[in-house]
């Protein structure tokens, strides 16, 4: 309830909740929040029982695509996506890590072809005991979760 006071409730739209505080700005970046023209509320460093400091993003009248949800899953598999209507949560989605992702993450290997020529990136997701790694389709090197850099 405390969060509802800290960050204004929305009538209809999406609440991305349980984001680990350190992942907030990456998520803001991948879903392109600066391009959204409806009301957006962002709270950071909120107390969370589950994961230390958490962040929350509320977006009026916008619903993320499957692609956006996959992107969020890569950055923060603990995030929960709530669909809101008439101030109520009508659907609660735990994000699921996809098997592959394309185009939006940079390969960490400076000697990779994707960093030398116009080639869009492709990765296979490896999930070892909750630790996510992105294996490049081209150079076969692994980009770890903490090294994920978003291509805009």
């Amino acid at each position: 309830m405390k969060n509802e006071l800290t960050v204004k409730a929305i009538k209809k739209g999406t609440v991305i909740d349980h984001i680990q505080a350190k992942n907030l700005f990456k998520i803001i970046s991948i879903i392109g929040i600066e391009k959204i023209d409806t009301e957006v509320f962002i709270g950071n460093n909120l107390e969370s029982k589950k994961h230390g400091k958490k962040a929350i993003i509320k977006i009026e009248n916008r619903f993320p695509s499957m692609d956006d949800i996959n992107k969020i899953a890569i950055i923060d598999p603990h995030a929960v996506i709530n669909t809101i209507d008439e101030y109520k949560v009508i659907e609660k989605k735990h994000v699921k890590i996809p098997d592959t992702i394309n185009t939006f993450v940079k390969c960490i290997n400076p000697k990779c072809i994707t960093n030398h020529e116009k080639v869009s990136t492709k990765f296979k997701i490896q999930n070892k005991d909750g630790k996510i790694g992105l294996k490049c389709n081209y150079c076969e090197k692994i980009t770890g979760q903490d090294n994920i850099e978003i291509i805009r």
Partner: protein
Amino acid sequence: MKNKSLISINDYTKEDYFKILDLADDFQKNPNQKLLENHIVASLFFEPSTRTRLSFETAVQRLGGKVIGFSEASNTSVSKGESLKDTILTVNKYADLIVMRHPIEGSARFASEVSDVPIINAGDGSNQHPTQCLLDLYSIRKTQGTLENLNLFLVGDLKYGRTVHSLMTAMSEFNPVFNFVSPPSLRMPQEYKDYLDEKGIKYHEYDDLNDNINNADIIYVTRVQRERFSDPMEYEKVKNAYILKNDMLDNTKPTMRIMHPLPRVNEIDTDVDANPKAYYFEQAENGVYTRMAIMALILGLK
């Protein structure tokens, strides 16, 4: 395998390995089969590698095919700034198969996505060099009669050596015991050891060459490169610890063979060369038969 590019050793199954090795055997017995008459193979070496290029070009010529290409990127359209994509899209109109070596990692996979004709990766930076791995398998099977249950020693730079990583992965299909001999700073990376643990394959790690080689079936030696050491003193300290000398071989198995991907610098003493256990020059020869087999299968001629 027909029309399928060979980019990474992981593209092929155990059954594919055997198909290639069996055909390589056949070519070794009867090397002059003109299967590639009326075929043109492009040999695109964006960085020089004389040994690999000569091996491929010999393989093409033994099969009666023709070779076009370049042995380094200077004086070509590449040095004028042409993209890899454009080079491949042009050359794939001329040739039936492209063999390429390129310093950028993943370049061969990318080329295979844009090319109409199959690509064989002859080395993409420190990533993959699958024909080296297949010729190593061929050499091991030829000298030991089998790939199963062997005791393998991998010596030298195990951290950066793509050859040993590919060989280790491929041989893991055949229930080996691995022995890793390297300076502490150039040990087999943890991810590969995790892979062996997952597959339940035994391995030992040693800091130097000693009596433990007496039960080896294969000793695979690689070069410890000076560039890998940030501290030159460290290199000076370790460089002589990994030199295989003839008198170290006295108590090794009579069937043991020494392999090396070449070029060698000083890690195998030249006094080993006359020992019947030295196999590295035959190994290089085997590369020609193995590459003949790979090209014939990819072009659907066998």
